[in-house]
């Protein structure tokens, strides 16, 4: 089956609190997004086999794959790291895709791993945004080309949440992302609405202007989430339900994204007691209302 332009609808980012919810509410979600790194243990570059299945997790993954389409959201490519590209990791992702037929996959516009001489890379602990400079643009284009050549799927780059700003960058964020996806048909955008909202709160960024500047025809997926305040800044902590401002921004963004294929609600598993089954269903219903408002309208298809 050719899934190239299949519109999925509204999904959830899988976490460890979800098995019971999904068992009883699988019909609520149109797809499930997984972080592939959760389902195996990386034993290090020189180990054989390097990636070892975690059986309980894989059992859950296999069950989900039988129920709904899956989408992969990576956290381990560390695309922004200079002089580093873990092709063994990409190869394993290719094998995972052959098993699970992801509809698309994605990673972040940042670096988190730094190479070491040991079997494991150093993990910076947080995803650090890349400077929006010409040499980073060239490096990222090359890596994304390799990924899309190896794994024949749309590959999405997610916009960052950031807490510090680099002075004197060559491009604005929207210009950088637009240029990154302009030369590769399979390179697309994952627009994280909550990251955008957090940046607008913390850095006075104009969120609607950002959406107006972005290549919205390249946006395939959107993320929505909740957050909270820490140390005088608004955090992308995935802390339960989405704030009103995120719903408003989502409505605005979806209206301008003719090739959108999915909206994913993310929450951290520690906030499941706050949401519970009803709270999760409410978030999904609200996202579906926006999804249906635009994807069911004839003019939306004309835009596409």
């Amino acid at each position: 089956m050719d899934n190239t332009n299949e519109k999925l609808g509204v999904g959830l980012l899988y976490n460890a609190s979800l098995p019971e919810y999904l068992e009883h509410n699988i019909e609520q979600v149109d797809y499930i997004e997984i972080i592939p790194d959760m389902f195996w243990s990386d034993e290090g570059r020189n180990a054989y086999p390097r990636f070892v299945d975690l059986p309980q997790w894989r059992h859950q993954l296999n069950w989900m794959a039988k129920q709904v389409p899956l989408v992969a959201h990576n956290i381990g490519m560390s695309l922004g790291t200079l002089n580093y590209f873990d092709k063994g990791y990409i190869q394993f992702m290719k094998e995972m895709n052959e098993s699970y037929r992801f509809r698309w996959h994605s990673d972040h516009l940042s670096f988190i791993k730094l190479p070491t001489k040991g079997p494991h890379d150093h993990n910076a602990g947080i995803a650090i945004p890349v400077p929006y400079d010409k040499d980073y643009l060239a490096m990222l284009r090359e890596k994304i080309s390799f990924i899309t050549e190896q794994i024949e799927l749309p590959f999405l780059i997610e916009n960052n949440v950031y807490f510090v700003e680099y002075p004197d960058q060559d491009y604005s964020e929207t210009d950088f992302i637009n240029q990154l996806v302009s030369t590769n048909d399979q390179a697309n955008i994952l627009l994280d609405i909550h990251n955008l909202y957090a940046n607008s709160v913390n850095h006075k960024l104009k969120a609607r202007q950002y959406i107006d500047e972005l290549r919205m025809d390249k946006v395939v997926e959107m993320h929505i989430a909740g957050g909270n305040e820490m140390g005088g800044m608004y955090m992308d902590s995935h802390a339960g339900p989405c704030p009103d401002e995120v719903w408003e921004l989502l409505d605005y963004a979806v209206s301008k994204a003719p090739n959108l294929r999915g909206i994913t609600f993310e929450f951290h598993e520690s906030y499941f007691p706050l949401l519970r089954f009803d709270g999760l269903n409410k978030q999904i219903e609200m996202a579906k209302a926006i999804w249906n408002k635009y994807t069911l309208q004839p003019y939306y298809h004309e835009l596409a």
Partner: protein
Amino acid sequence: MNSPDFQLAFATLIASPQLCKQAIADEPSVFDQFALTEKEKTRLRSVLRQKGMSICCSLYRMNRITPLYTQLTQTATLLGDELITLAEEFWESYPDSSLQFKEEVLAFGQFLLAKLEVGTLKFPYLQEILRLELAINELSYTPAIIEKTVHFDYDIVAILLAMDRGTLQTERLQKVQVAYKVYLEEQTLKLALL
């Protein structure tokens, strides 16, 4: 032209609020450890003085403590407020973390066991709890290993029951050499006395 050293310097600063303070007070003592261009020095100088830098440092600490809280729950309970002090000491001595849960938990567990061994850390029953939780950690992330035999100097079941009652600090448990088979069944811990 951007350099890998900029990324290394930024990541190193995020991992150490003390180093951030040092860089602000005495920039060359930190920046000269890395091969940075003038543009990169300007960028680091700027981010060090932004409010968000302390958020980055806090997020780093939260992300490093998460595996410890998740996999060493009883150890964390036993250590109480001491956990953070010990974790900070561990992070100073073990800065190159992969943040793979299995390795991070094992490294912290070995760090604590070494301190217990030489007597720089004294915590009744911590050694038993650590031995158990390190075995569980290994079982959780190494599917080829289905069970572990773990030796204890105090009965681990009595310790766990006392912790559950909240009376461990006041109870005087009998020292006894025991071994248990430790295994997971449907992700639930099982102990069988050998």
